[in-house]
């Protein structure tokens, strides 16, 4: 019975695992050691593990619990990597520091707490001897904070055929961070503008690539955004702009380039986005030649139905454990679901602890200095993981 498994949830184990993981530096591109740790922990819990070397020194780790009877396949997934250390940490980012209910450390919330709860779930199920139908698996992937190569690599394995994924990202599915029923896609425009050099005192003899590039940037609000019934419109954000002399010299700049992030709603693709930018540029009648390209990372948008089986399993569990209804949203924040659901067409549930409060001076939120997780969330998350697995697989 699932209640046996729930009773075997060991909250002290969760905290211990979380603290151990914080101590392991797994800044993006250095996931190897944490991958080893998770592999060892899963094996200690009696699971057979598989390693997939995505890039040299950077493996994904997988493990399965095969149930007794055939059935659906559910994967609990998380990314091994954290963002790099930013300036301003008051404590050592790799030493877990407890202040009241806050456990401070790099990746504490994003997303080692999620992994700790996944391990706790597996341990509880193993300890209780409770058998799930179908297959319950765990996936730990690299590179979510950079180019999503870990998730892409997982789609090349047999885990590409699972029926749903639970992403243990910090999504408490409340007002602070609702459960995404869909996420925007994203492309990164790379626009290069080619003008013509001339002496800067005679600008009329040249074509100023910086000025022409600036005209494009100043007119980005002419981009056409599809109005999606759920998402409404996407958005754009210029991330970088460079052009002009390296060593001081009064010369009309012959080239310039800029990058623009664009979030896409379902119905918009990289191709439509490029065509849109080209149309905008053409309408400006610039003297420069302009190349519109994109550069990685690139992500697909997706939507899921509100009555998707994983949601139907999740919703009552959330109400039961949290005592309130979950909040849903069409979201603007890229996660590995853009790969799993957007490309892989696997329905994804995002569920994890709440994020730390982001103080303008002290940080505390994800991707910020002094990142922390409120440990009172962990027992609730562990219980929800166990119950969602049961609800999805044993139905």
């Amino acid at each position, binding site marked *: 019975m699932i209640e046996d498994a729930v009773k075997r949830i060991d909250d002290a184990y969760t905290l211990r695992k979380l603290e151990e993981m914080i101590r392991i530096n797994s800044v993006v591109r250095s996931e190897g050691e944490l991958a080893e740790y998770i592999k060892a922990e899963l094996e200690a819990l009696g699971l057979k593990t598989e390693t997939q070397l995505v890039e040299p020194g950077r493996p994904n780790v997988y493990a399965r619990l095969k149930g007794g009877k055939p059935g659906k396949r559910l994967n609990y997934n998380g990314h091994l990597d954290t963002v790099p250390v930013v300036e301003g940490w008051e404590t050592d980012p790799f030493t877990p520091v407890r202040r009241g209910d806050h456990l401070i450390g790099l990746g504490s919330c994003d997303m080692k707490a999620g992994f700790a709860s996944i391990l706790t779930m597996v341990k509880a199920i193993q300890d209780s001897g409770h058998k799930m139908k179908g297959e319950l698996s765990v996936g730990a992937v690299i590179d979510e904070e950079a180019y999503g190569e870990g998730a892409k690599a997982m789609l090349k394995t047999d885990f590409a055929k699972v029926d749903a994924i639970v992403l243990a990202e910090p999504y408490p599915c409340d007002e602070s961070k609702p459960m995404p029923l869909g996420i925007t896609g994203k492309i990164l425009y790379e626009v290069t503008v080619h003008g013509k050099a001339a002496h800067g005192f005679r600008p009329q003899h040249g074509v100023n690539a*910086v000025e022409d590039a*600036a005209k494009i940037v100043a007119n980005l609000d002419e981009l056409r955004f599809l109005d999606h019934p759920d998402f409404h419109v996407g*958005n754009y954000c*210029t*991330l970088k*702009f460079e052009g002009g002399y390296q060593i001081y010299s009064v010369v009309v*700049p012959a080239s310039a380039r800029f990058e623009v992030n664009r979030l896409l709603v379902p119905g918009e693709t990289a191709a439509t986005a490029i065509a849109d930018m080209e149309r905008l540029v053409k309408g400006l009648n610039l003297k420069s030649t302009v190349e519109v390209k994109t550069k990685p990372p690139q992500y697909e948008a997706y939507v899921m139905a509100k009555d998707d089986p994983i949601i139907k399993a999740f919703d009552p569990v959330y109400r039961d454990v949290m005592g309130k209804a979950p909040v849903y949203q069409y979201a603007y924040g890229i996660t590995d679901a853009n790969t799993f659901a957007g490309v892989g067409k696997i329905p994804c549930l995002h569920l994890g602890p709440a994020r730390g409060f982001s103080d303008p001076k002290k940080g505390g939120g994800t991707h910020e200095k002094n990142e922390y997780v409120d440990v009172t969330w962990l027992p609730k998350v562990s219980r929800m993981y166990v119950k969602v697995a049961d609800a999805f697989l044993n139905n």
Partner: protein
Amino acid sequence: MQRQPMYEDLLKKLDDRYAVKKLEEMIAIPSVVKEEKELAHYLKAELDTLGYKTELQDVEPGRPNVYAKLKGKGKGKRLNFCGHMDTVPVVVGWETDPFKPVKKGNRLHGLGSNDMKGGIACTLNMLRAFADSGHAFNGELSFAGVIDEEAFGEGAKAMLKTEYGKVDAVVLGEPTTAEAGHGTPLGITGKVLYDIYIHGKAAHGFDPGAGINAVEEAGIILANLPSLEFKKNPNFGQGNYSALKIEGGYTVYSVVVPATCRIEVNRLLVPGETAEYAVEDMERLIKGLKLKSTVEVKTKPPLYASYEMKKTETIVKVFDEAYRKAFGAAPEYGYNKSITDANTITGEGGIPCIHLGPKPGGTHQKNEYVELDWLPRVSKAYVLMAAMYLS
């Protein structure tokens, strides 16, 4: 008219082979901007030999100006022949060694051959003729070799702080031929380099509305530069602008709304426009854009003042006559946009300047050369100008 025979005496002392020899020697002394020292010492030694009173002025450590003077018989005006010792750096593509004078027909190739060692060679020729001939003149004839013209004009600025900052007129040996299309300037535009800092607000790039994008607002400023207000000058028309540089955004890839951006815009100023006016003009433009960012409008060196001279200036009249005699044609005048040391000497120092030098080819480019058959006529014009002005 009575002085004609004396001028002949001066003119007889001009030595075209000497001029070419000096030019070749100077080309073989690399003096890329910041490395003028060796050439300064060469010129001092040469002028010492010619009998001038010389001195060095350390403008910056290891970078001296060199001065030389010859006092005339009686009281009179003070005329200075000025030239910058520095050249631009070597660019890619030279077919010969830039520091070896190479003759190809009428052309002498070498870095600085026309800009402006050719002019200095003609000046040395004239100075030698003056010293050698014992020609009686009034006032003072001097030479100034200055550093840094190709960068920030520090040499000319330092000259203004010396006694040579009070001469009555200056002749600059830049390669200006006073031919049609290359008139000798009666005025030059000034220049200011705007250095504009835009401060926005960082936020996650997926939620751009939560931030203020400094790069996008910098783009708006650049796109609206045509709204700058240029004053109209009857001689120059109006100034112009050219964006030279922009930088803003992430150093390591990260989807963040850029919080800062910086742009540089060159602006040429006509007489009547000062740097202060230019800064106010830019601030007015930016204010009208109602941006969300805070914007600081600064300027960065080099900064040059514009100037205008009247054709009735004594040195201009003297030049006009000297040019006609030396070249057998009337000189062309113009109002130019090319910054020279005159922006400092005339624009700041108030000393009228004439630009005259041998005909150039490939200035600031690979395979730079000077037309050798211009050297004798330029030397002759220099002699006539000095003799007439200091009579």
